[in-house]
């Protein structure tokens, strides 16, 4: 009798643990190197990696383990296990994201700008971006005059076109909601940033 009840209790505990593991047991704090599951049962997400030697998924960060169920239409029906750490890394511009940048240099065919915010988040270290003459506006792109479009110190809302070359991201202001959002007037009177005579002003 005693033997039977012990195995019954352990079976229930195993069932509960399995339920926790599969449905979303988020109660566990893990450290790097801890086993999160077998590669045949779970997929590694952020903060986890799979070791090819023994096909096991380990944690790579310190934080809470969480299990994301698979999307119903994907071919791979394994849940994804993630570890969310407490350190937030700075934002990094991605192609397609809207950034806020300050113009540093204006040249004949392009303007250089320091990216300060990506979306709503400010960056930890600034990135460099360039706006080429053909990306300033959507119409009459060969007649753009860079010096009347931008001035050093202007704050610009731009779209990241691509990662660009080794030196800078490629930015574009060729949309209605993009372009210079704030600038200092050339007459420097204290009327605030209203005296804009730039061609690239956003609407």
């Amino acid at each position, binding site marked *: 009798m005693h033997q039977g009840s012990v195995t019954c209790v352990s079976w229930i505990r195993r069932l509960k643990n399995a339920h926790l593991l599969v449905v979303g047991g988020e109660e566990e*704090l893990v450290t*790097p*190197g801890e086993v999160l599951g077998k590669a045949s049962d779970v997929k590694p997400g952020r903060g986890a*990696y799979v070791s090819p030697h023994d096909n096991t998924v380990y944690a*790579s*960060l*310190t934080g809470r383990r969480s299990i994301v169920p698979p999307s119903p239409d994907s071919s791979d029906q394994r849940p994804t296990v993630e570890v969310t750490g407490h350190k937030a*890394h700075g934002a990094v511009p991605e192609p397609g994201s809207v950034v806020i940048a300050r113009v540093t240099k204006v040249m004949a065919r392009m303007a250089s700008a320091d990216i300060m915010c990506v979306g709503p988040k400010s960056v930890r*270290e600034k990135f460099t971006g360039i706006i080429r003459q053909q990306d300033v506006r959507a119409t009459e792109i060969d007649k753009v005059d860079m010096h009347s479009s931008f001035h050093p110190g202007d704050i610009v809302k731009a779209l990241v076109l691509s990662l660009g070359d080794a030196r800078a991201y490629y930015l574009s202001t060729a949309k209605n909601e993009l372009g210079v959002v704030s600038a200092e007037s050339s007459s420097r009177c204290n009327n605030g940033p209203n005296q804009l005579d730039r061609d690239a002003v956003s609407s």
Partner: protein
Amino acid sequence: MEYVSPEGLRLDGRRPMEMRQIRAEIGAVAKADGSAVFEMGNTKVIAAVYGPREVQNRSQQLSDQALVRCEYSMANFSTGDRMRRPKGDRRSTEISLVIRQTMEACILTHLMPRSQIDIFLQVLQADGGTRSACINAATLALADAGIPMRDLVTSCSAGYLNSTPLLDLNYVEDSAGGPDVTVGILPKLDKVTLLQMDAKLPMDIFENVMQLAMEGCKAVANYIREVLLENTKTLEYRRGV
């Protein structure tokens, strides 16, 4: 000189298989992305990690993985005599290289291409085992910075004096001239990332001494894990989670 008394006690009163008291603290350097202070007995080391950030020297940039840089230096006041050139001497360069290779083996560098991770280690008090304390401090600082790693790297040293394997040598035992084996392992994956020894040992004794050092590493790993979990719980509590 007698390093192990007939009763089986060492010079500081420890048993041969006993480690010194360890203490760790996370977040000592607020400006760094991750930092830690690690003490093993009287040896005290501070580690600061900056990264991943943009590579400062473009020519060293690696297109498929992160560049790991490590600098080990001893403070002027860390040893009994005030040192004149604590940085740039051969021993510091060698230890910097060794620690860099150890940490690079465990950081998942392929996740952060074209970026740089800097590990700065400063020995505040040196009483033997500075290399091991530095590796343990660097592991804690990297975990605090949220840099993805395969596993924690922990390190411990062991020696062989008066025909007894001794765990965690202090400065006096280290300067005795006997063999000193430093081991660095990935405890959960059970892999060795660092193995260094001065002097000579017969093979069978070496295996015992290395096994002892690995046991010490595992004990350090358990402590480091507890410290990390405690730190995460405190941070969550402060954030109101």
